[in-house]
């Protein structure tokens, strides 16, 4: 049996939480927001032509894996990343690494995770969790969504590591290999902020970043006329599920990003960042208000309570706020 002395901590965002917790195992303290910010995780895109469960895809974060890779690279931490062709090799390698006393991060699909809340049972393949031991055919898991630590069988673990569909994990496993004795957060923070600012206001493509929020706003106004009230409500619900439900720590990662900016203000000793963090906090509250009011259009009974024009106007407001914030952040030195 292997059962490492790994500290299980819940997190708002699985990938950032796993990164923070894995580094914590090696006594390198870094908060979840700091990982997320340095990893330049914040994003926005709305892709009406790419449907998931019959509704357009809206994303509030970057490609899965980027937060771990970018943040560790920016901090000078070397890591090991593997994908496998078949479950047997993937599970053998997992055991080998655990035997060496190394807890392992895994990308998995959530559909067949036995401990996952059934309300969340969808083919979401971008989930991250840590395995910190095993006893014959039972594995010990720290899943940042769950309050307690949990267990999973060999068979179930192999299955979720090889879930199919978009962003299929292909047995992906990853862990830190070496951490420098001295790590300077300052350049990593600045680089991360610049990258996010560039993603949000520097991409000349209408479906991405702040432009993407305005694009969604324009689309939202047409949903009822174009697709009817039921589909409009479902499309809106899908945006809100992406914003609030799939582990964004609330308001599409905007709270977590604000917390990162707040922390960065101290580390960089740049007080203007604190002002920006407050603006981001207010912005997050506006996103939250949008989801709260929007949810009133997603109830089973009764007519929609908010006009889509009203909700679309709220999106224009957050787009303006984010444009202001990221224009200032882009200039960080």
């Amino acid at each position, binding site marked *: 049996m292997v059962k490492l002395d790994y500290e299980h901590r*819940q*997190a*708002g965002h699985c990938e950032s939480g796993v990164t923070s917790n894995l580094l914590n195992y090696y006594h390198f303290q870094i908060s979840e*927001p700091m990982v997320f910010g340095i990893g330049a995780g914040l994003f926005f895109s709305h892709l009406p032509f790419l449907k998931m*469960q*019959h509704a357009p895809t809206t994303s509030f974060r970057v490609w899965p894996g980027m937060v771990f890779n970018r943040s560790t690279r920016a901090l000078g931490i070397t890591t090991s990343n593997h994908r496998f062709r078949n479950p047997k090799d993937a599970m053998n390698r997992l055991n080998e690494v655990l035997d060496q006393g190394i807890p392992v991060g895994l990308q998995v699909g959530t*559909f067949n995770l036995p401990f996952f*809340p059934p*309300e*969340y*049972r*969808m*083919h979401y393949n971008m989930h991250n969790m840590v395995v910190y031991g095993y006893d014959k055919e039972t594995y010990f898991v720290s899943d*940042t*969504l*769950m*309050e307690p630590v949990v267990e999973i069988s060999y068979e179930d673990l192999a299955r979720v590591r090889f879930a*199919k*569909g978009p962003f*299929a994990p292909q047995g992906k496993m990853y862990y830190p290999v070496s951490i420098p004795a001295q790590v300077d957060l300052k350049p990593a923070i600045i680089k991360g902020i610049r990258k996010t600012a560039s993603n949000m206001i520097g991409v000349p493509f209408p479906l991405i970043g702040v432009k993407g929020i305005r694009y969604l706003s324009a689309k939202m106004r047409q949903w009822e006329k174009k697709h009817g009230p039921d589909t409009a*409500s*479902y499309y809106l*619900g*899908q945006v*809100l*599920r992406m914003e*609030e*439900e799939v582990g964004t*720590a*609330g308001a599409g990662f905007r*709270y*977590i990003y*604000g*917390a990162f900016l*707040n922390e960065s203000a101290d580390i960089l000793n740049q007080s203007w960042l604190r002002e920006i*963090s*407050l603006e981001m*906090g*207010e912005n*997050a*509250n506006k996103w939250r208000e949008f*989801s*709260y009011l929007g*949810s*009133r259009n*997603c*109830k*089973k*009974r009764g007519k929609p309570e908010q006009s889509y024009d009203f909700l679309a106007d709220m999106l224009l407001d957050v787009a303006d706020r984010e444009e202001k914030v990221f224009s200032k952040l882009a200039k960080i030195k």
Partner: protein
Amino acid sequence: MKESIDKSEHPDDVPGYCYNRELFYGFDKERGFTRELSYQNQSNQVIIRQSWDALEKRLEQLQEVVISGKVSPIVYYMEKMLMELPMLSAYMGLNRLRVRWHMTPAGFRRLKPSMLERYARLFEITVEELKKPGFMNK
């Protein structure tokens, strides 16, 4: 810590998920950025519930289509498992054209027992349920 959600409201408002608290970040001017363990709030419960209600509605419509003999039960169970053709093909290890053929009544009738078993196992049902879904007995 927030208490678990009040269940005294209308059934449509009753939350379906309140047995695992999650970590949420928040912000207000007085306290700044906060972290709190709580159950999913009411409005999130509503939007979670919506996707399951929408699935139920799609399945009801699909039942009629299967009963009418236009498609095979595979179409129904594929939807029930929230899959689409590319994902189903990947899980079955078959090419899409072949799965599309199985989705037709003619193709489905010709399926060998071993293939029916594979589909049934993926759909988490018995072969009997696959061949004749419960809703066809109505």
